[in-house]
Structure formats: C-alpha cells, structure tokens
C-alpha cells in the first residue's frame, strides 16, 4: 500500500511538472499536483500510523516532496509574470518527482523503528529535518531562477535559506536533546549520519554569512543553487537503500 502511494505521488508530481510547461493546461497541472499532495501526505500518515509512538525510520527524504511542493506554490506566488511562475513550479515539482523516484528505486523505508525513537524530541528531529530539507531545496531552485533572470530576486533566496537553516538548527537541537536523554551524550557516533547533519549546517552557516556582506553577490547565488546538490548528495543519499525494482502491492 505504501509503495503504491509513493508510485502515485511520484508520477502525479512528474505529470504536473510537465503540464506546467505546456500552455493552457494549468488547471490539469494543479489537479495533478493536488492529487500528488494527497497521495504523499497519505503515505506519511500511514508510516506514522504504523510506527507511533516510535518514529518512522528513513522518512527524512521520502517525506520531503509534499512540503517542497507546498513551499514551492507559496514561493511561485511572488512571481507576477507567468513564465518564471510556471518555471518555478515545474522545477519544484520536477525535484519532488526526482526525490520520489529515488525513494522508489532505492527504498530503505522498510526498516522497523527502534524503541528509543519513542520520544517527542526524536519526532521533532525528524519533522524539522524534513521541513529544513524542503526549504533548502526550494532555496536552490529560487537561486537557479535568480541566476537565469535579468533581475535576481535575492530576497526570496535569502528568505528560504534562512528558513531552511532555522529548521535545520532546530532539528539538530532537538536531536541533541534526544541523544542526551537517550545515550547521555549530545553527539552519538554510533550512526555516521550525524556528520552529514553537521556538514550541511556548516555549509549554510557559511552561506548565510555570505548573505550578510555586500560582496559575493553572484557567488552566493551559485552556492545556494549548488546547495541543492549538496543536500541531495550529503543528506538524501544516506536515506537510500540498495537498488530494487519498484513493486506496487495494492
């Protein structure tokens, strides 16, 4: 059932991404995106329904698409002209499609949770991580659009970077509290993923400081766009398992 929902939202997001590029198919694109949201949120609901009071395992990347799309629609409203608006939505939905496809081909969501994840801090750590990834991916898309536009919309990029960084910091803080209550240390080295969190946090600390100066105008946009690739490589790949042919079990 869960796998079928992943197949459903991935294909609906892909379809919506394509339809937003075709003129006069806007309503159809919105309908596909909306249905994709329902399927994706349904998948997340099912995972939580099974795992509660524990935290679902390896949900940190597969749960990103619906929030990325929600943020993406909010960001696209800022574009008054139709083309950047459509391009922004296509890129957002396209990235959601790619994330869904990766989760389908390299599944890792079949792992059972462990008892120590039955904690509010563990739940908070996961939720803020998902929101952080979504905001940082969107910042990368907005930076890419800014780089291709005649007048860069830097305030939009800065907003999503800052929001993503706040979520990321909250995810790290809740994770540290959970780690301290569960293991007695703020950083537990039993799981290598801990350094991936640190790596992305340092990356965005550097990037945010670049936004505080009047220099690096172009470089910070390039780096924000590259930040999407960074998050994909450093933070999404640990949530991927070995390649498997996707099977839908209705």
């Amino acid at each position, binding site marked *: 059932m869960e796998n079928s929902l992943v197949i459903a939202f991935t294909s609906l997001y892909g379809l919506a991404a394509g339809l937003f590029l075709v003129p006069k198919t806007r309503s159809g694109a919105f309908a596909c995106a909306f249905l994709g949201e329902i399927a994706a949120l349904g998948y997340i609901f099912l995972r939580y329904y099974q795992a509660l009071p524990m935290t679902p395992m390896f949900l940190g990347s597969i749960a990103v698409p619906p929030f990325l799309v929600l943020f993406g629609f909010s960001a696209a409203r800022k574009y008054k002209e139709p083309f950047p608006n459509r391009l922004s939505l296509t890129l957002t939905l396209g990235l959601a499609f790619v994330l869904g496809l990766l989760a389908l081909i390299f599944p890792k969501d079949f792992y*059972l949770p462990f*008892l120590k994840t039955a904690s509010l801090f563990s739940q908070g750590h996961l939720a803020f991580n998902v929101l952080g990834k979504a905001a940082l991916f969107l910042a990368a898309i907005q930076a890419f659009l800014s780089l291709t536009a005649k007048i860069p919309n830097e305030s939009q990029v800065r907003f999503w970077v800052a929001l993503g960084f706040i979520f990321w910091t909250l995810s790290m803080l809740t994770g540290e509290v959970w780690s301290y209550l569960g*293991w*007695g240390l*703020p*950083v537990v080295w039993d799981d290598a993923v801990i*350094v991936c969190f640190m790596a992305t946090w340092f990356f965005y600390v550097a990037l945010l400081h670049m936004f505080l100066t*009047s220099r690096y105008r172009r470089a910070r946009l390039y780096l924000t766009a590259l930040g999407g690739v960074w998050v994909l490589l450093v933070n999404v790949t640990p949530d991927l398992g070995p390649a498997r042919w996707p099977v839908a079990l209705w």
Partner: protein
Amino acid sequence: MPKSLTALPKEPSPKEPSFKEPNLKEPSLKGPNDLSLADNATELNNKNGPKNHLVRLIKALWLFAGRLDLAIYICFFLALDTAIAYPLIQKSLFAFIPLGEVGLWTWLFTYGRAYFSQTFWFYGLALGLILLGINTFVCSTTRVLALIKPQNRQRGWFLKLGPHVTHYAVLVMVLGYLGSYALAEALPGRALIPGGPAYKLPKNLGRLTATIENPKVYQGQRLLFFQNWYLDPGIVLRFEKPGGQTYAAPIAYNRPVHYQGYNFYLTDFYPKSADGAMGSYRMAQLTIRRDRAAAVYVAGIIVFAVGLAMYVADLIQSRLFARPKP
C-alpha cells in the same frame, strides 16, 4: 499611542540620536551594525593612531582573527571535512563508538592515532572548531564593543545585541560539548537484574537495586513484529545510601535518573518481548555517566534562546517604529 509613533522627526538632528531604520537587505558600511571592518581598518591606518608597533601588530592580528571572510572559509572547510567523514565512519564504526565511553583525550591518543587514516578528519574538525571559536569571539566582541559605545546607542540598541548573544551561546555550547567529552566519566554496559543482587555504586555512593512495576507493552496489530514488546519495562531503581537512606525513581528509555551527580540511562532491556523466551528472568542494561559539563551546554541553549528572542524583538521593533517612506 506612544509619542514615538506619532511625532517622529523628519530629519534626524545631528545632536539628538534618533531611531534609524536598519537596512536589512544591505548592511551599511558605517555604523554599529557594520559587518565589514572598514572603520577599524581606517582607524588602524590613521596617522593619529597608536604608533607603538606591538600594539599595532596586536590590533592587526585582532582584526584579522575577527574577519567575516575567515568565518566563511572556516565554515566551508568544516562542511567539507565533516562531509568526507561519512564514508570513513561507516567503514570503521568500531573506532568511533568508544569516543563516548573512554573520553576525548584517551580516544585521541588510542583509537584516533591507531586508525588515523579513518580519523584524520576528526583532528580537522577540532582544529576548525577552535579557529571558528576564536573568530566568533573576536568578531562578536568587536561588534559588541562598537554597539555599546554611548554615541552608537540608538533606540532599542540593547536588542541589537541579539545576534551576538546567539554567537556567544554557540561558543558556550561547543565548550560544553568539549567538556562533556573530555571530562565525563562513563560506566557503560552495567547489567542489573530486577529483583536480583544489588550493584555497588562507584565512589562509595551506596548500592543499587531494581524492581519492575507496571511495564507497558506495544499493543495492536499495526507493527506485528513489535507485538508485546516492552515500550517501557517499568523499572524502578532503588538507591541505598551508606547511611541507610533510600531513594527510588523510575527509569525508562529516554528518561534517565539523576542521583548524586550521576546520570543513569537505560540502554537495553531483556527479554524484549513480554512473551520472550527468558522465563521469569529479566535484565536491564544501564549506562552510568557523570557529566560535569552538562550545565554548560544547557546554559548555552538557554542563552541561545534568549539571543534569538532579542533578535526577533529587534526585527518587530524595527518594523513597528520604521519611518514611513516618502
């Protein structure tokens, strides 16, 4: 309505300080919030400035150590350093797990040195954090000193300290983590049999026994694997002081017990399931830790929250008292 909302002067008089709307998009190159070090550099090169070479050298070093560019480079270095650590930790997890058990110094000179080809990034992380700590301290102190000068005190100047308070808080937290790894005492894997013999606590703290009261098991069919698993084994720890006084407290996963400066963590419990194959035998695995630096990073987290609240209050104030654009 406050007077400031209705009667703001059109042009600020040079003698009386008035509120100036901060430019959030581009920081100005002059003023207390200036993020470049142009003013200090000018002062350094001023002919009327200090002539003493040593003072000038120290000042130049101070300015260099507090450069914003330096913070950016160090953070990118730390990002790369920790990113390459992921495959290295995965490859040799056994070398990193003892880091929380044997303490930082012992680990650095044993596991760290023996598996240097896998742990070199950790030395890079330590070096980077030290450099970032120095840079953050110098940078924040320079700006705080500029902000608290009487001529720079505009309305709400105190709230402008918010970002610097968060920077100091991060420093305190990192120092707390360092202290936690360097000074903590850990006794991992202490087995305790509920209803069984007492465990003698270290440093003459007394004896420890355990009982089981009201265990909670996983109910329902949602995850069949977990049916009847203990979510909370319901263990109650009983501490008996050498004088004969007793103290009892329940312990569970993610719910440690604090006693006489020591923290007791439930690491594992056997059998996992209420219908497990151990009959009436039960065993709890505890980790006992004494973390002298815990208060430091808890203080850091609190100060961080205060700094963040000051920053948000400053943003709100800036919007409330912003002069309308002509």
